[in-house]
């Protein structure tokens, strides 16, 4: 019998994870393990708790119940050791509207110490390479508020991967992107990037195609958790019924 490849160490371990906003429970009883380098696709109707889950994993929200370990560190206690290793691409591009795309990326590069040790050149080279990759080099000196939503999203992708994170947290990452732009960002945030990814999507077919593990949330509760191979589109679509 050929030796089986050992499963990589988990990048995300959640046990009975929960979070409330005042009286309202936004997330409850989420338990899962995601090995490093794999993709977790998260499905659920609006208000199901998907964004709350993402923000907890990004260390932006404290869990109120259960345990969360991200990249081998316990949250929220060791959140400091996770920050800088996570790339978040959410609904909000996290870009200052009055600064240009290039200025925004330079600012984030400095916060993350991108190119530290190489002087400014290291950071600048990375920024230019990313802007080129997403086709935004020509418009990069224009204020973000003058860019279309799709262009802003492309810059936000650059911002999310600028510091070469180990874990990508993506909330509808292809929103507002035309097919050309979606193809351009694919090597940066798609499965080909080889990173651990948590992807929220409402495009069931596309989400499933990229997934290794599927999580379905309904009313903040874990309604579905299964490997991709054992999950069909019908089971996911039931979450929206």
């Amino acid at each position, binding site marked *: 019998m050929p030796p089986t490849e050992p499963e990589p160490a988990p990048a995300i371990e959640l046990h009975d994870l929960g979070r409330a906003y005042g009286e309202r429970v936004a997330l409850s009883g989420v338990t899962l393990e995601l090995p490093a380098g794999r993709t977790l696709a998260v499905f659920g109707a609006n208000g199901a708790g998907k964004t709350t889950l993402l923000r907890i994993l*990004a260390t932006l929200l404290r869990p109120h119940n259960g345990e969360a370990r991200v990249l081998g560190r316990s949250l929220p206690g060791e959140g400091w050791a996770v920050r800088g290793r996570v790339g978040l691409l*959410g609904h909000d591009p*996290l870009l200052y509207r009055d600064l240009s795309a290039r200025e925004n990326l330079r600012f984030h590069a*400095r*916060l993350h110490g991108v190119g530290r040790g190489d002087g400014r050149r290291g950071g600048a080279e990375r920024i230019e390479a990313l802007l080129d990759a997403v086709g935004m080099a020509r418009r990069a000196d224009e204020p973000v508020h003058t860019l279309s939503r799709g262009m802003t999203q492309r810059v936000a992708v650059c911002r999310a991967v600028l510091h070469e994170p180990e874990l990508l947290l993506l909330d509808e990452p292809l929103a507002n992107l035309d097919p050309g732009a979606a193809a351009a960002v694919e090597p940066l945030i798609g499965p080909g990037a080889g990173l651990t990814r948590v992807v929220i999507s409402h495009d069931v077919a596309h989400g499933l195609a990229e997934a290794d593990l599927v999580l379905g949330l309904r009313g903040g509760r874990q309604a579905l958790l299964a490997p991709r191979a054992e999950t069909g589109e019908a089971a996911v679509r039931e979450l929206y019924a």
Partner: protein
Amino acid sequence: MTGTPTRTVVAALIRKDLRRELRTQESLPAMALFSVTTFVLFHFGLDARSLEGDLAAGVFWVTMLFAAVLAVNRQFVAEREEGGFDGFLLAPVDRTALFVAKAAVLFGFLVALQVVAVPAFAILLLEPSPGPGLLELAGLLLLADAGIAVVGTLVGALAVQTRAREVIVPLLALPLMIPVVIAAARGTAPLWLEAGAAAVEGRWLLILGLYDLVFGLLAYAVFDYLLDE
């Protein structure tokens, strides 16, 4: 894993805030316009260029305080509305860097404001010439500005989390800044006497210095918690 050096982060935040202010001009011009307009109103309201001593110092410092409130109101708005807080919190940085940078920028705005406001005040309202004692005045301005910047930044960070930001800022900041106004006005009054500038009493400088130190330490200790959710 090591975080980004705090001085690099502070410099990046200051540079970003100054660049935004240059583009949007949302704080400094409003502060300058407010101050000069107030002096003009007092000029006509009092029907003379006649202020000196305690009254002159009081009018000047209360105006500075209200002008500062305008900047404090805007201080964290971009962080809140454009995702600046999240972007900052995702980075491997010391969170107090944000406090240091914001306070430094507010301090810079106040100094820049006073470059305009002091001459405008002298022209429109001040009876004696502000020339003698200018160095002592500069010292008082810097100490008082530091106090206003520290407390303003703390209050700004707190207020931006609420819906009633524009009410909360003056409601919290003004009472907290009363010691600054008292010490700064009492310290400034002898410099603007009609009979000529007298020496500034050392105790007012000491009070301002202590205020800066106490609130600086307090803000440094609690700022991290203000950024939590």
